[in-house]
């Protein structure tokens, strides 16, 4: 079967026998651009597919890196989202804070008279002072105490809209009453269940016995594990402080007022001991404290970077050993006329494939973990599409850099050494 039965049948002529000239092998047309990208990618996929265990290791590495970055960025985002839980829930147009207030859990007091001064502006309908302080809450079941965030306000004014608050406005006006945030961490006790069973009951806040009259939903933050809402008068009963100070002023404008213009007028009107902020600016101000004033933001960015570096090393190792173990095949391809650029596209194609097949399960696993960890820590871990896109770009960049490092190994494939 090794003999060619009749070569002349397959191959019709032999010039050295019939005196004709052999046609010069003509230069061939270059492949189309689509093929110049598709064929290296296909070769890369065929090569990756051939070694299942190596492919699995690479996929696991990329997946691990994806999950790590997702979790770190998730925690970072949850921190910033939850840090602004309280302020984000406020429904007013303009806010006044003291310029030295860094974060809402540790406010610098501002003169309460500034709230009334703003009423001089014809477009200001309502100016509500808000009081913020921390106290301790005794778990009614275990007796353990834990720091809790107090929010004192005129619940009926409508400057703040926590779910559940509207129905207990009248109850909160009674002396020594409060509402508890059911989204607080469980260490404060099963308050929601107890309230459902018994109706209102007595709790201990600081050194004072108070009556729990309702539940609201706000959510814990890194600054506060739980929240308690009460009236301005009751707040003063718990926290002894100067009557003329407040911590935050929420201002509502008349319908149709130009918010930016009113802010400008208030800035001109009020002295330098208050900042006039829009709602977005207030949230951003709080956020920037956590981002820049604490190492927490940096820690998560650093963690993400470490995940990317580890993933990059894994992908580099896989690509490098793929090239190293096929170095003579790569050299043969070069001898056959494959350019360095073509082979570099094969390696970069492998990197791209690994990025995709590692990212997709990484995204799924992270989604699952977000759900589990979010339930366990009460942090708002949310898979935003924008975050998924950012992580994919990071993973893609990671694989691309690993690929570029591995491409250097191609130089070792020298077709002249093949003979």
């Amino acid at each position, binding site marked *: *079967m*090794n*003999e*060619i039965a009749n*070569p*002349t049948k*397959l*191959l019709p*002529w*032999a*010039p*050295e*026998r019939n*005196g*004709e*000239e*052999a046609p*010069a*092998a003509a*230069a*061939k*047309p*270059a*492949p*189309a651009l689509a*093929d110049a990208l598709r*064929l290296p990618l296909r070769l890369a996929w*065929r*090569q990756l*597919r*051939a*070694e299942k265990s190596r492919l699995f290791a690479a996929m696991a590495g990329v997946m691990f890196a994806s999950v790590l970055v997702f979790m770190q960025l998730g925690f970072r985002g949850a921190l910033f989202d939850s840090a602004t839980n309280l302020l984000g829930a406020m429904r007013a147009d303009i806010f006044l804070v003291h310029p030295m207030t860094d974060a809402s859990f540790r406010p610098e007091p501002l003169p309460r008279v500034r709230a009334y001064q703003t009423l001089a502006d014809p477009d200001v309908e309502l100016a509500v002072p808000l009081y913020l302080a921390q106290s301790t809450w005794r778990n009614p079941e275990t007796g353990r105490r834990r720091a809790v965030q107090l929010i004192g306000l005129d619940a009926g004014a409508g400057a703040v809209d926590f779910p559940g608050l509207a129905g207990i406005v009248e109850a909160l006006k009674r002396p020594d009453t409060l509402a508890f945030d059911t989204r607080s961490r469980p260490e404060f006790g099963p308050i929601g269940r107890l309230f459902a069973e018994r109706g209102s009951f007595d709790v201990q806040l600081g050194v004072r016995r108070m009556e729990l009259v309702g539940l609201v939903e706000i959510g814990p933050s890194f600054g506060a594990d739980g929240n308690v809402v009460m009236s301005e008068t009751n707040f003063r009963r718990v926290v002894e402080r100067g009557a003329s100070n407040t911590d935050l002023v929420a201002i509502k404008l008349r319908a149709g007022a130009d918010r930016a213009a009113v802010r400008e007028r208030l800035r001109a009107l009020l002295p330098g001991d208050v900042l006039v902020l829009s709602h977005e600016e207030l949230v951003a101000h709080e956020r920037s404290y956590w981002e820049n004033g604490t190492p927490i933001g940096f820690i998560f960015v650093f963690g993400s970077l470490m995940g990317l570096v580890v993933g990059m090393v894994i992908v580099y190792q896989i690509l490098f050993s793929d090239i190293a173990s*096929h170095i*003579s*095949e790569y*050299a*043969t*391809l*070069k*001898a*056959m*006329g*494959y*350019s360095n650029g*073509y082979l570099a596209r094969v390696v970069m194609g492998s990197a791209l494939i690994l990025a995709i097949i590692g990212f997709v399960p990484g995204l799924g696993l992270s989604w699952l973990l977000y759900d589990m960890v979010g339930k366990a820590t009460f942090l708002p871990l949310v898979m935003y599409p924008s975050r998924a896109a950012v992580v994919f770009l990071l993973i893609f960049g990671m694989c691309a850099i690993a690929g570029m490092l591995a491409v250097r190994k191609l130089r070792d494939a020298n*077709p*002249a050494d*093949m*003979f």
Partner: protein
Amino acid sequence: MAAPPVDLKSITFAYGAGELRRAVLRDVDLTIAPGEIVLLTGPSGSGKTTLLTLIGALRAMQDGTARVLGQELSGASEAERVRLRRRIGFIFQNHNLLGFLTARQNVAMAMELDGGLNETQRLKRAGEMLEAVGLADHAEKPPSQLSGGQRQRVAVARALAGDPGLILADEPTAALDKVSGQEVVHLLRDLAKGRGVPILLVTHDPRILDIADRIVAMEDGRIVSGAQEATVGGEAA
């Protein structure tokens, strides 16, 4: 008469520089006629392989002029050399087939740089080439399931698939036993003769000298016999 596919004039080549400079080719002249099968023999270190890599545009030239398939190699750019290589079929001592591709896909690799063919045409032609080397039944097997002789025949099919103007082979039988070595080179000769493709084959193997039109012997960087073109068109030596 068209220009010969290979025309070398006073090729000199040395490795290293300065004190360590070691000449491996001294003033080599060699011409290969269309359709001619030339065997290059000689002891180790005589410069055969270096000559082959120069003709194959795998190395940059130093001194002398070399026209291969109409391309002047002296002073040729890397891109020009890469383009020239696409028109040359290489057969190595080891088959160097891609282990993750089937025999047919390996042969098709020789044509993937040719924009004139689509995937169907490439695979069809690869199948025809494998049929021509007697491996029609093994086209879909990976190299690991083929014997040494069969792999080398796949390499022959791959070298010829791209319609090369020249075949360069380096010890293609070194890794094979006598019978399969003979089969491979006879196959190579028949296919090349059939299409008028000239072959330059470096070998130590005395068992395959019968396929040559001309035998060129090298020693110490010089051609010592066979430099003159044989009369082609007569009986093969």
